[in-house]
């Protein structure tokens, strides 16, 4: 028995001594935070942060080369965890999602001819710019769909990519993958989008696509907050200024502008509950709310565009939905 203990103990001792010596010779400094950081990162290796995968970002974070908010797909949760490990304050992240700026699917935008080749947009774009007559249009071969690490993009029946907003993490893999650069990351709050990127003249656009932006400018005129600018015959919505009122979509003659807001209502202030703080009036982008300080405020229903910004800021919870505003789809129908 005693021999057994001695033998095993002796072997252990010899090994421990050997390893101890070896560890002096082969010493490597490892930052333990790197491993912890890797643990909190999503592990999708999507590359949205600009580093080659999650472990590369973890290293950069530990070295202070990247911000805690660098992981966009992880959102605030991951940013918080990272900040916790690093012992710093997390900045704020605005949730952004991918928006496809083209509605020229099959039957809407014309093809140049019969494309025979690699079924990939980026490869097809090398064959004379791709098979669509519109040089700014979606090629419809699904490169963005394959590039999305989260399965948030799928081609619809017309061969156009559709983004599932709940799955999109705003990593930007599709933005980089699209050879036509028609996918952008935009703040989730903006739910109205111009779905065209062609800067060609209206006539030229009409010749190749029935639903392209022809640069008529009606949307810009209709916008109550001047969030739409006309740029070389193309309407562009400033997503930070847009209040998603949908008026532009209602007036677009080619039905190009998407309005993703399901139903809008005019704001209605419950006057007895109003404490007259004026917060709602300050956030209203169209100056539709007025009232004396400390007195009940009123909504000018003609001006109100139903953007819904006032309700969440009311400390008294006195703002509720009023009359519904018909959506552009209903207008068209």
């Amino acid at each position: 028995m005693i021999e057994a203990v001695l033998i095993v103990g002796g072997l252990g001792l010899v090994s421990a001594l050997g390893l101890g010596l070896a560890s002096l010779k082969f010493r490597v400094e490892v930052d333990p935070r790197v491993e912890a950081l890797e643990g909190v990162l999503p592990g999708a290796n999507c590359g949205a942060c600009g580093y080659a995968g999650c472990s590369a970002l973890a290293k950069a974070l530990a070295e202070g080369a990247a911000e805690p908010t660098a992981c966009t797909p992880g959102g605030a949760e991951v940013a918080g965890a990272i900040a916790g490990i690093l012992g710093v304050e997390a900045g704020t992240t605005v949730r952004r999602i991918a928006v496809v700026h083209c509605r020229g699917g099959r039957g809407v935008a014309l093809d140049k001819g019969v494309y025979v080749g690699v079924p990939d947009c980026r490869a097809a774009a090398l064959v004379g710019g791709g098979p669509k007559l519109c040089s700014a249009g979606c090629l419809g071969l699904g490169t963005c769909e394959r590039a999305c690490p989260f399965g948030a993009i799928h081609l619809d029946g017309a061969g156009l990519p559709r983004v599932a907003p709940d799955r999109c993490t705003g990593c930007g893999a599709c933005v980089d993958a699209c050879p036509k650069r028609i996918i952008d990351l935009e703040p989730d709050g903006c739910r109205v989008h111009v779905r065209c990127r062609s800067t060609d003249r209206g006539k030229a656009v009409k010749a190749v696509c029935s639903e392209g932006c022809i640069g008529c400018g009606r949307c810009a005129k209709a916008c109550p907050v001047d969030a739409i600018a006309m740029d070389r015959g193309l309407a562009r919505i400033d997503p930070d200024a847009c209040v998603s009122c949908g008026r532009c979509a209602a007036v677009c003659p080619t039905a190009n502008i998407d309005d993703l807001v399901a139903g809008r209502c005019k704001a209605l202030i419950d006057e007895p509950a109003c404490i007259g703080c004026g917060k709602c009036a300050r956030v209203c982008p169209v100056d539709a709310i007025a009232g004396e300080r400390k007195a009940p405020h009123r909504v000018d229903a003609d001006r109100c565009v139903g953007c819904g910004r006032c309700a969440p800021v009311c400390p008294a919870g006195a703002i509720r939905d009023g009359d519904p505003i018909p959506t552009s789809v209903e207008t068209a129908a």
Partner: protein
Amino acid sequence: MSLEPRPLTLSSSPHAFAGDSTARIMWTVVAALAPATAWGIYAFGPRAAWVTALAVAGCAGFEAVFQRMRGRPVTVSDGSAVLTGLLLALNLPAASPWWLVVLGAAVAMGLGKHVFGGLGQNPFNPALVARVVLLVSFPVQMTTWSAPGSFLADGISGATPLGAAKTAVATAGVLGPAGHVDLWALALGAHGGSIGEVSAIALILGAAVLLWRRIIPWDIPAAFIGATLLVTGAVWELHPDRVLDPLAQILTGGLLLGALFMATDMVTSPLTRKGRWIFGLGCGVITAAIRLWGGYPEGVSFAILLMNACVPLIDRFTRPRKFGWVKEAAP
């Protein structure tokens, strides 16, 4: 005015093509196997025809089934499944029971090919995968040889010359009568063996067409046969009483069928000439080693499968020399 033909085809250059296609290659190989198949049917009787038909139909059927299961276009008409089926049949004894053949077809198409994604992606030759699976699973059925001419093919007679030699050496220590083989009979195909391997002349006839049409490279058969000849020849010099002479080694067993039609399978052989030599030499040496020292009398199938496994590495270390690179960077 020239009227515009609409729509025009848009594709990347080049716009001219040599004209060969996958289907053409496959069907040409099938045609090149016709002499060997015909001889097998002539020698082993209607039973051989039944096995052949079953294997071909089985492979074609399983190909269609697996492709449909994956929701891919069914490409039986490209001939690759038919070719696999034919090669499988030629590797089976004429007396194979029907279930053995069908199982072989299923294994070839399933485990050999479609598990890896179908045509062009399988690392191992599907027909050989099937043969070896059957051989290790059903050794009795797989080595119940019929003698040619025994048109009843009931599996009562016949051993392959290699099998006979192995048994003789194992039991008596020397070849004895098993060492007396008639080379002409071997060349013609008048000896026991699987359906397609017996007639050297028929196999060479078919392979000549493929060599001439450049569908198979000559390097692999040359290296394969050469290496077998060399190794078995050297050992035969030392122990002529225990080893069949090298010419008989070439003419018996699946060596010619393997060297000409199985090892040359494009999908599972190296890309470059240097690689093909290494591949062929490896096949030959392993075949000889198994025949001389192994437990199995025949080693062609194992040898080719083993070398199939080496192909990715061979390819990696036999990259062609790139233009403008004096010394190739690390692979």
